[in-house]
């Protein structure tokens, strides 16, 4: 019975992992990763790690994957053009990964750990349940526990700073950065407020014509030129790099 469950969960986890790597649409990658995480939770249960399995399902498949789904929906996914910017990148990547796998398997199978070929020792029924893990976290590992909480706080603040700064800059810099479609009927009177009101549609409009290189190149020039003389030199050099990348 245990063997059957192990192989079903292992095949599910492997299929999920391959699906993450192989699917072209990032949304399908996220869904495959969710399936992978559920299979891993089953494996954790087989290893009598009930609390880790529950945390895997609740935190990972519940919370983190929702974040991924939102970002994929926001960014739009797709658009991964050709596969080989380096010639033979696909083949070389797979070759390197399989070499690493062979090496790891050799290390595992020739290991001196005799206990690898056993089920592990018999453990009490409370092994890995929330009470035991909580006692470990709050008694023996109190300092790492607090350190991870501080790290989570820092990551949340950092993500807010990273993602929200541009939202402040886009409407305020919008008095010069509107694309021609919205700034054409520009009387000088209510320009700033109208631009601010039309900020969201113009942003969406500009995003639809993002793929041509000119659309991404013209807006920074105009924004930089409207501010001062000094940022012009920096912003003029930007389209060269971005269009060179495209």
């Amino acid at each position, binding site marked *: 019975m245990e063997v059957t469950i192990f192989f079903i969960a292992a095949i599910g986890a*492997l299929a999920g992992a391959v699906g993450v790597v192989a699917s072209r649409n990032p949304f399908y990658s996220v869904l495959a990763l969710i399936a992978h995480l559920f299979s891993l939770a089953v494996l954790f249960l087989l290893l009598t*790690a009930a609390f880790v399995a529950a945390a895997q399902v609740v935190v990972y498949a519940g919370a983190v994957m929702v974040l991924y789904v939102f970002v*994929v929906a926001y960014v739009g996914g797709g*658009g991964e053009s050709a596969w080989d910017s380096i010639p033979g990148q696909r083949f070389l*990547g797979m070759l390197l990964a399989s070499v690493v796998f062979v090496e790891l398997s050799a290390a595992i199978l020739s290991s001196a750990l005799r206990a690898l070929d*056993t089920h592990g020792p018999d453990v009490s029924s409370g092994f890995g349940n929330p009470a035991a893990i909580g006692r470990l976290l709050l008694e023996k590992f109190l300092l790492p526990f607090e350190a991870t909480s501080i790290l989570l706080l820092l990551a949340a603040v950092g993500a807010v700073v990273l993602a929200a700064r541009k939202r402040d800059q*886009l409407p305020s810099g919008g008095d010069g950065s509107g694309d021609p479609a919205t700034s054409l009927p520009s009387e000088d009177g209510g320009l700033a407020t109208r631009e601010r009101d039309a900020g969201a549609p113009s942003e969406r409009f500009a995003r639809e014509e993002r793929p041509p290189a000119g659309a991404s190149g013209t807006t920074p020039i105009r924004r930089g030129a409207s501010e001062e003389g000094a940022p012009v030199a920096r912003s003029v050099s930007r389209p060269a790099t971005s269009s060179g990348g495209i």
Partner: protein
Amino acid sequence: MDIAWYIVLSALLFCTGAAGILIRRSPMVILLCLELMLNAANLALVAFSRMVGNQQGQVFALVVMVIAACEVVVGLGLIVAIFRRRLPLDVDDLRELRG
């Protein structure tokens, strides 16, 4: 089930994630493959914890989970910031740190 099966499966999952990081070019999929690798390490940690009969490996796996969540949050924030600057979401084009 022998512990060695779990460890070999963990190695296989790790290499799948590594291959994805080497092959794919969208930053979001690369983050997903990073998750695969971290989860493979988690599986190995829990399996070794079962092998020794000690629960401390599970605490370690939980900490790895927290680190992965932090990494995801910062990485997705970066992706959103890149997207707002209308830069291409492709790691071959994003080779300069200059904003």
